[in-house]
């Protein structure tokens, strides 16, 4: 068997640039699709995405149990989001996002981004990827892009299912809230997309943090849990008004600024600041992750 393959190698002209094996190109290693399939085959990916589809349906069913009780959802202007959840598909989607933005989506993004490198390390398959060799920066880039793609997919699945189910159940109505004029469905959909876009940007911080931890530790749970814990810590600190201006530096400070996108006219100031904060933190975390991973000794 060996002889035949040697012959084929010689016939192929043997060696690529840098002494590489025939057919090997650094930029072709670990294609996006290959990594996407790697992750898609995992049970946790399937469960997380499945839950994104399931959650709006669960909420929808829960709304069917209308006990008629008049419970007061805390009287602030944005509480109307809850009261108006069943007024139409757009409002239902908004509600689904509202209830999942602060924690569920954070966990999902942390899971997808925190697990990606750490789990390979814990399985021992990371060293074989590096020995292929997949250049380290490329490995990280592809892993990051795939993780971000799954995060985005989760967000879109949640919103898409909610929009579909909500529209089927409650109809295609204008987007209502107490903070703005009633928005025509088309305009409302645009606002909804803007909200999703901003949420995606805010979640970049979680993605960055989880990814950094993922590169730092071999324990996938540590990376995911660490990112969520730090996010919660930041949220708690953000509640402490005694910190004053320091709070603006917390990565979670602007996490609810997307509510401003619902008002008329659209308030983009905090969205812009939140974007700066999120992009800054994400870049910092990813930069550290790349810096660390391209230099570290892989001993797992």
């Amino acid at each position, binding site marked *: *068997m060996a*002889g035949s*393959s*040697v012959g084929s*190698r010689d016939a192929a002209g043997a060696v*690529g*640039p*840098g*002494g*590489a*094996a*025939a*057919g*090997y190109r*650094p930029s*072709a*290693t670990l294609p996006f699709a*290959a990594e996407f*399939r*790697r992750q898609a*085959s*995992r049970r946790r990916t399937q469960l997380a995405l499945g839950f994104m589809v399931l959650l709006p349906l669960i909420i929808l069913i829960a709304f069917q149990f209308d006990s008629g009780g008049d419970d007061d959802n805390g009287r602030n202007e*944005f509480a109307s989001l809850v009261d108006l959840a069943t007024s139409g598909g757009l409002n239902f989607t908004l509600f689904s996002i509202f209830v999942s933005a602060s924690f569920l989506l954070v966990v999902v993004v942390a899971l997808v981004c925190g697990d990606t490198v750490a789990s390979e390390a814990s*399985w*021992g*398959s990371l*060293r*074989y990827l*590096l*020995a*292929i*060799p*997949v*250049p380290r*920066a490329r490995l990280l880039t592809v892993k990051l892009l795939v993780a971000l793609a799954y995060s985005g997919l989760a967000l879109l699945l949640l919103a898409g299912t909610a929009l579909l189910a909500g529209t089927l159940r409650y109809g295609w109505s204008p987007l209502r809230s107490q*903070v703005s*004029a*009633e928005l025509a469905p088309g305009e409302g959909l645009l606002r909804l997309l803007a909200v999703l876009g901003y949420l995606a940007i805010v979640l970049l911080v979680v993605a960055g943090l989880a990814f950094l931890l993922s590169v730092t530790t071999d324990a996938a749970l540590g990376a995911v849990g660490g990112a969520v814990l730090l996010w919660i810590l930041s949220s708690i600190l953000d509640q402490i008004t005694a910190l004053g*201006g*320091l709070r603006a530096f917390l990565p979670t*400070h*602007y996490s609810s*600024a*997307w509510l*401003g996108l619902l*008002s*008329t*006219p659209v*308030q983009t*100031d*905090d969205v*812009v600041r939140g974007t*700066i904060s999120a*992009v*800054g933190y994400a*870049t910092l975390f990813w930069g550290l992750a790349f810096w660390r991973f391209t*230099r570290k*000794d*892989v*001993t797992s």
Partner: protein
Amino acid sequence: MRSPLSAARVRRALATRRRRVVAASVAVVLVAAAALWAARPQPADFRAEPAMVTVRSGPAGDQPVDLDTTLYLPADASAGRKVPAVLLAHGFGGTKESVRPDAEDLVRRGYAVLTWTARGFGRSGGEIHLDSPDYEVRDAARLLDRLAARPEIRTDAAGDPRVGVVGGSYGGGLALLLAAQDPRVDAIVPMITWNDLSRAFLPESTGRAPTEGVFKKGWAGIFFGGGGSAGSGPAGISGTTAAQPQGAPASAGAPSPRPGAGPGTGSGRAPAGAADPSCGRFAADVCAAYLRIATTGRADQAAVDLLRRSSPAGVLDRIKAPTLLVQGEADTLFPLAEADANARGIAAAGTPVRVAWFTGGHDGGAGPTSDSDRVKFLTAQWLDHYVKGDGAAPGDGFTFSRIAGFDALDRGLVATGYRTADYPGVTGDARREVQVTGPTQQIANPPNGNPAAISAVPFAGALGSLLNGVAGDIPGQHVRFESAPLDEAVDVVGAPTVRIRAASPTGEAVLFVKLYDVDPAGAATLPDGLVAPVRLTGLPKTIDAAQPVPVTLPAIVRRIEAGHRLRIVVATSDQAYATPPEPTVYTVAPGGGPVTLPTVDGEPIPTTATVWRWVLAGLLAAIAVGLVVVVLVARRRHRRQDSSVHPEYAGIPLAVRQLRKEYADGFVAVSNVDFEVHPGQVVGLLGPNGAGKTTTLRVLMGLTQPTAGEIYVFGHRLVPGSPVLSRIGALVEGPGFLPHLSGLENLKAYWRATGRPWADAHFDEALEIAGLGSSVHRRTKNYSHGMRQRLAIAQAMLGLPELLVLDEPTDGLDPPQIAEMRRVLQRYATDGRAVLVSSHLLAEVEQTCTHAVVVNKGRIVASGPVEEIVGDSPSVLFEVTDPAAARTVLDRLHGVRVLPDGDGGLVVDTNGTARSEVVAELVRAGIGVDRVVPRRRLEDAFLALVGENSRGSGDR
């Protein structure tokens, strides 16, 4: 050659530690700096001099009054370094303390600030004359004298200080009146104040005189205090004091246009006997006028004259000091029209005037942060130019703001600022006309104004009106005229006008006209709670004979969204106003013609938000540029690295040169390893656990960086990620598979990750080697250790790499599999391929390998062809009866050499001489030979090492 090891280690350890220390200290410094910045103590860069001063004022300037003053001076102000001054007046019911934050702000900007408690309030003496030119205004003029006498204050001439006057509400009125009376004033910033006090308290929206105005009893009562419960204390009227009712004067900031608190907040004792319990500290004439108006709801000419005396309206042409007028939109006491009248009057005299509207006011407080910031900025800019002489002329551009909604983060209000080059007044610079229709309807005037509609609750603030919380009309007492839904949004800026017709059996009617914004759901909002009271006289008894009456509604700033309707409500009662006590039934009809909505084409004021937008753009650009730079640098470095092919090692699959690996904790795993693997060889890397085998292989696979030394694969220098690694197949530190995939899927996933052509993989050969049968379709998490090991070897052989590196390949295999594996490896190494096998088992290396490299403690202790070092070697161990004699005999033999070591026996290098011959020679010499043992170098070396080191050696 190499620098001393210890020094290098120390340096490295230091470097690691230093890096950590640096990172930690940077983090600590950053956090500490941020904390300090947030909580930085405000340096006491000014001094305050409180003083009770006596000034003489009154009509003849001879009535002494004690004023409670504080002079704030910048720390560096002195006779040699004179500073301009600001006279800072407080609102009605306040004291000098209520403007202290503003004073501190101004003094930090380099002004000497004189604050005082106006007469009749706090610890100051005297009575309240409502900013009378003879009293309060003259007091202020005397304070200017005192300022001029201070050596630290800059003067324009002897006795003429360089001074600006700033104040809100009561203080704003004083600023205007003082500037009209005293030419020494250089600039004024009156905020939320009046033009004509009589019109403010007795408004009439069809343009009638205050004597026919509708008494604004709500506000008047608050000012006069609890309807005459004056005797409750020397401070006079205490009804509204406890809750500091006026707006939200809580924020600390530069001259925020805050109204003062309710009257009589001061705790001081009035020196002058407050004799009349119905008047408190009000002067007798003011008190009497109030009592007359409040009793009848109508003002006589004398009362109006008295209020006019306290109004800037009549003296605006005498104001020569440049004036910045700041007026609140949420202000039912002094609406925007007051500032408008002031602006027109002052501008008519040729004096520079600038107008700014903000979303606060007597109802709305200081407004959102963006608004109070704008007011602060405008004030500072105005004073800096006209008083201090710094900066360019501020111009006369008009700025205003509109409530844009709730802030998503802190739930406060958000205002958007706009600006235009010219002040359009309350009539706007363009107008929209909207038709309203409605029924002719009879509405009842309730007796004594009860029950009454609620339009605005004083101090409820803009929040109340925005939330639609307080507005309410009484059924039967109002009529509605509505428009169709607007097809596009209208930004109303200014005073809308509407025409109504009314009939009254008495010929007279008091009505309240309001403009509501009604959203599609039917919720109606009365902007800022503003209403237009009208007193119509000479009305016919029937509506048919009624003439349309134009009503000017209060000026508002509001965006009425598309789809919303306008609703004009005409009501007979309003809680904030005095209405005729007799019950009457009026008939009201639309006046025909549209509602005219003034608009202003304002340009949004760039706020810090714009800056942030640029920051965001800059950040994104910087990230993009940074990424490009990083990629370019990486490419360049990559290209430079890969270019070299070492000619000496070009044909050699593996050449390891003086490899050294030292971990961050200083542990030297490999100190000096040097070997080669040639084509066709199966090289065994043999050593006890912890000898450094795995570390060597890790470096070889590009998983860790060597501390020193090089590795060449086919002449290519190997660094982590070198492309030449693609010619190496590896099993290092055990298998690593995705547990949720089957064996076959794992191999496919692996090959997919290489990005190489599918045909190059040779899956069949690999699977044959793995020998897993149908188990290859099971998930790897269910595999046994041996199965995984075989699968890992198969994975290493995927693509039939030219160098196969296997770390303990037989680990977990059973004996037949081990035998099979040996055959596979030996076969693999033919045809120019090479195999490197690491093992701690001597037998395995002996049986599998062609060459062996023995390592221990990170060093090579032996290397060479296995036959050479394992097979019979030229050295033989002799155990003889007489070693000394034997040595002599052996030395005589040609070529035979006794090696120096060997305890208990002689180790002899026979050097080609047959062992039998040597033995025969010894026996012939009479020496007994007990044992003759051919030496196996590998075993010797290895067993000696293992014997010493098999315990307690760490994993290398």
